[in-house]
């Protein structure tokens, strides 16, 4: 990251007319994506991430707000005049053209000299490992190969930013993981800003420098992968990224009494929501030391998942025994595969105070 802005969105709003009603797909998004950054727009379908990307590409005009590329206002510039390229969902390769012609398309449109086209297309096909397949038609290739053609077709133009719309969605898991590493390598090699749209949180966490988590047309949190995972800004982010436990209650003097125990929330009072990740929790039979947060419950389910066990624990609460809160706990199968607790066991769950993260005090 050089700190220069590649893409800036300024309070961008996109409204649609659907069945005579105005629908806001994007409700005011402000982003500043730096030069050379691997930036992800992450969210469930319908959260506005694709619309946001299409406004950057120029396929949609914002109803309100500004789009800037490298400091220049391009809000009303058509896509063919933007120095930015896109890798489409399901690739959108030209079915009637060979791999070579697909990749050369952009350069030809820009009236690049023929010998330069030959050189650059050749180099690009080498980078994506498709040398020798120039004459193939897209439909004669596997999904992974088509994916690389789509990537080459965009990158050969040396755009100042590359937009990728769920580019790995159509691939199987193994290939997807290989392509994630491949994409990251190519991005480092060419040093271009990548804007990556996905609903797959693990994909976003693996590859991104920064992630904007979107929900319902708004950015819920904008931060690095670690920050987003460890310190989710809202209940939505906590729930969308990985598995998360939410504990709600009234805190007094920095202590939240819940589940037959207490959660330490130093500096917080009143209504709070606390999140804690399942892998940070330890299962035990003894009441934990006073500097740890601890709650009590009954094991409702134990699921063996190979590298770890997943426990579902019903929290004990007050007199009636349970308040319906279920806490998920992951425990590594480090030494042997026997579970540390059985179904029906009464257990203490505990974790360090730093792993409780308060996302809302209202």
């Amino acid at each position, binding site marked *: 990251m050089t700190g220069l802005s590649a893409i800036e969105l300024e309070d961008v709003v996109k409204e649609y007319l659907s069945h005579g009603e105005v629908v806001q797909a994007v409700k005011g998004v402000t982003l500043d994506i730096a030069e050379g950054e691997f930036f992800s727009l992450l969210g469930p379908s319908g959260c506005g991430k694709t619309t946001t990307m299409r406004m950057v590409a120029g396929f949609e005009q914002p109803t309100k707000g500004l789009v800037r590329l490298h400091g220049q206002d391009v809000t009303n510039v058509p896509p*063919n005049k933007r120095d930015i390229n896109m890798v489409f969902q*399901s690739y959108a390769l030209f079915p*009637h053209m060979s791999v070579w012609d697909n990749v050369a*398309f952009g350069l030809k*449109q820009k009236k690049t000299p023929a010998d330069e086209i030959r050189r650059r297309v050749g180099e690009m096909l080498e980078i994506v490992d498709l040398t020798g397949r120039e004459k193939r038609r897209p439909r004669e290739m596997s999904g992974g190969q088509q994916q690389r053609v789509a990537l080459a077709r965009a990158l050969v133009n040396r755009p100042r930013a590359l937009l990728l719309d769920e580019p790995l969605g159509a691939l199987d898991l193994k290939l997807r993981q290989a392509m994630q590493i491949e994409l990251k390598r190519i991005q480092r090699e060419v040093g271009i800003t990548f804007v990556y749209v996905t609903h797959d949180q693990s994909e976003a966490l693996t590859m991104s420098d920064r992630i904007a988590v979107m929900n319902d047309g708004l950015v819920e949190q904008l931060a690095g992968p670690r920050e987003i995972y460890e310190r989710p800004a809202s209940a939505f982010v906590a729930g969308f990224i990985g598995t998360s436990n939410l504990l709600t209650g009234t805190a007094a003097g920095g202590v939240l009494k819940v589940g037959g125990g207490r959660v330490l929330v130093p500096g917080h009072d009143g209504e709070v929501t606390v999140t804690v990740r399942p892998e940070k929790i330890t299962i035990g039979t003894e009441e934990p030391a006073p500097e740890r947060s601890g709650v009590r419950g009954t094991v409702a389910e134990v699921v063996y998942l190979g590298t770890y066990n997943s426990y579902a624990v019903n929290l004990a609460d007050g007199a009636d025994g349970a308040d319906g809160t279920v806490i998920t706990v992951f425990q590594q199968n480090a030494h042997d595969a026997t579970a540390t607790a059985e179904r029906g066991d009464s257990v203490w769950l505990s974790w360090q105070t730093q792993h409780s993260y308060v996302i809302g005090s209202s």
Partner: protein
Amino acid sequence: MRRLTPYLLALPGWMWLAIFLVVPMAAMASVSLQTGNAIDGFAMTFSFSNYGDALSTYSTQLLRSLLYGGLATVAMLLIGYPVAYWIAFRGGRRKSMYLFLLLLPFFVSFVLRTISWNFLLADNGILFGTLKDWGLLPEGFHVLATTFAVVGGLTYNFLPFMILPIYVALERVDPRVVEAAQDLYATRAAAFRRVVLPLSLPGVFAGVLMTFVPATADPVNAQILGGTSNTMIGNIIQTEYLTNLDYPTASALSFTLMAILLVGIFVYAKALGTENVLEAAAR
């Protein structure tokens, strides 16, 4: 037995083709080489001169047919492509309604539709008569019995056969492919020329085939809208068969027309690049 099964399954199809295509064709080929007359009967004389005679007598009508068929096809392409494009890309939720409207005229017989054009275009009919009464058209103005009327009638009657295959081809074009072209610096016009048009060529190919062949051979439009000076080869064949009972000449003309159309289609397919067309169609 097992190896024969696929062939046996195809047998009904082959028999259909044999009885309703090969046998009549062979019979007609035989008739085209016979001499004689309807009263004394015809006898096989291998008279290849039937072809030469028929051609030299009716070359004008034959050439006129090809010209009218060609003009109508060009007109249909110019009208049909934009219509198909509009329905495919701008039709939205009403697509099927537009397609239904396109097919609606087929609920009325072909001959009746052509006769109603005759009625509409009559020199002192409902349209021109009124305009002439108002003094908007000169008294001598007429459309009936002109080349324009015949080509117009052909264009009108066969237009849906041009639109439908083009529509089907355009409908299959992924809008994202068009966006991809624009993303790769193509203007709207360039995206159309380099992507949409090539992808729709199989439809154009089918459309031209489905309209040029029947339009060239059609006798109805020339008869109803063309008057006496626009006779096409279809009318001649009809007259030779049904009025003059000169079967050899009629058969020779039919074969000649068929040969010309087949050669034409072959050349057309070559020129357009069948491989490309078929490949795109098999996509």
